């Protein structure tokens, strides 16, 4: 096709390079369409879709002037803070619970059914309950984040522990390890990649839940910003909120992904050669 020949002209031949090129071209085209339909030819009402320049100026506005009491970094801080608390508690309770599900059979028999049942109630359904208990405070949002992040920790921790090759447990027994020492030194490190995966999922679920919770209730934060944008019929504010949420979410996931090499150093070279 035409685009292909054009690209190979510039030395873009490999599939990966082509994918990036196509992607960039598409995004630029969309950007162009956006600009043309709003600022240039004014095909769409600013009320429905603001021009890019409006969004940018809104960004600048929120960064410099306080919006409902806080500038943009203030709102970001508030959102991240609540999310952080929720994920923290989900982690320190969820991981042990998940590990125990796999390690202590009677505990699983007793507690798993209730966990499964509660799992089916979406985190957002807890918002009214949290509001009833805590009012419109940080605890409300943190609780919703907790509910959203908790299952991922439990499920992935259980999975990790239950999938540890029995031979490691055997080896630990042979060399004199008691039950708890086996768990601590052998089983949990072996389950760590799975637990880490749970962390990634929990973090992302928690972030989603946080935004939703802030939409519904609260006076600060990115979600609140979006709902305010709706109330003030300021689409540009909404856009600022959405873009920031999206970017932050991607950044956080990226950080977590990169930190895996640091937290689990023995996974550097996972393919085992034989002989």
């Amino acid at each position: 096709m035409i685009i292909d020949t054009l690209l190979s002209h510039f030395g873009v031949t490999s599939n990966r390079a082509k994918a990036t090129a196509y992607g960039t071209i598409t995004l630029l085209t969309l950007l162009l369409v956006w600009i043309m339909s709003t600022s240039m030819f004014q095909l769409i009402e600013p009320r429905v879709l603001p021009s890019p320049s409006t969004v940018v100026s809104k960004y600048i506005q929120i960064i410099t002037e306080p919006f409902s009491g806080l500038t943009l970094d203030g709102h970001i801080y508030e959102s991240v803070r609540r999310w952080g608390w929720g994920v923290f508690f989900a982690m320190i309770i969820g991981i042990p619970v998940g590990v125990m599900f796999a390690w202590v059979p009677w505990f699983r028999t007793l507690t798993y059914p209730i966990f499964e049942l509660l799992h089916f109630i979406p985190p957002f359904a807890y918002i009214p309950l949290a509001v009833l208990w805590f009012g419109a405070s940080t605890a409300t949002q943190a609780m919703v984040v907790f509910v959203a992040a908790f299952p991922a920790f439990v499920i992935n921790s259980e999975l990790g522990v239950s999938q540890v090759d029995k031979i490691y447990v055997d080896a630990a027994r042979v060399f004199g390890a008691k039950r708890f020492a086996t768990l601590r030194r052998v089983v949990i490190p072996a389950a760590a990649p799975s637990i880490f995966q749970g962390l990634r999922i929990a973090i992302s679920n928690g972030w989603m839940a946080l935004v939703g919770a802030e939409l519904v209730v609260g006076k600060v934060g990115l979600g609140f910003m979006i709902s305010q944008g709706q109330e003030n019929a300021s689409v540009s504010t909404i856009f600022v909120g959405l873009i920031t949420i999206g970017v932050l979410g991607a950044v956080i996931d990226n950080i977590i992904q990169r930190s895996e090499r640091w937290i689990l150093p023995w996974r550097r070279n996972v393919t085992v050669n034989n002989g």
Partner: protein
Amino acid sequence: MIATTEQLQPGHGKNAKLQLRNITKQFGNGEQAVVAVDDCSLDIHEGEFVVVVGPSGCGKSTLMTVAAGLEEPTAGDVLLDGIPAGPPGPRRSVVFQKFALFPSETVQQNIKFGLQMTGVPADEQERRLAEQLKVMGLEQFRKAYPSELSGGMQQRVAIARALVMQPETLLMDEPFGALDAQTRTILQEQVQRLHREQNYTVMFITHSVEEAVYLGDRVIVMTKRPGKIKKEIQLPRDVVWKTGDIEQAAEHKDFIEARREIWALVREEIVAG
């Protein structure tokens, strides 16, 4: 030159170190029950290198797992120095076929594992660790993770981990099965040498008849499943062929004859399927 149990040399007249008495192991119940080991009895004396061979699936690995205490026998006892052996522990150190090195720990952490679990003082731990690293040629890999090592190196670490415990008995479950032929040859020679120098009491499982003849003082041949002991073959201990590597040994007349005899026994069992 090749003696059978009837013509036992009095060399190991001591009491048995490790005794397996009438071991039967059954998996599953009722119709789907599988009897892996059927009424096997085996005495391993101190300093003896006993090798168990047999066709695939004959239950030799299961026999070792029971001997190590990792599985409870359906019937029979495992005795260590005449007393019921109980749960697994460093007195019956194990080298596994799949290495079983703890992936999240370095080589030295792996080797020191048993020492830490049994409360050996720190300076003694270091001393023994240094010794093993030297003997197994692992000094430059002290801080490496298992995933960074080749199969042969990993198994060396596994052997070091077992030997560092100065075990009363050493159980090895087809330890070279997952390695390539060259590494296998080198490690066989090393194990042979270690045994001659340190006089370990060893129960060694393999499907390779050559390996059995090369390494063993006594070779136990098992039947196909359900595994019983078919025959015990005593091999002379301090023979010329055991000082070289397996390639050199394989040229020796007595080696060839022993191998032929044992292989015929094993083949009978394979074909009888």
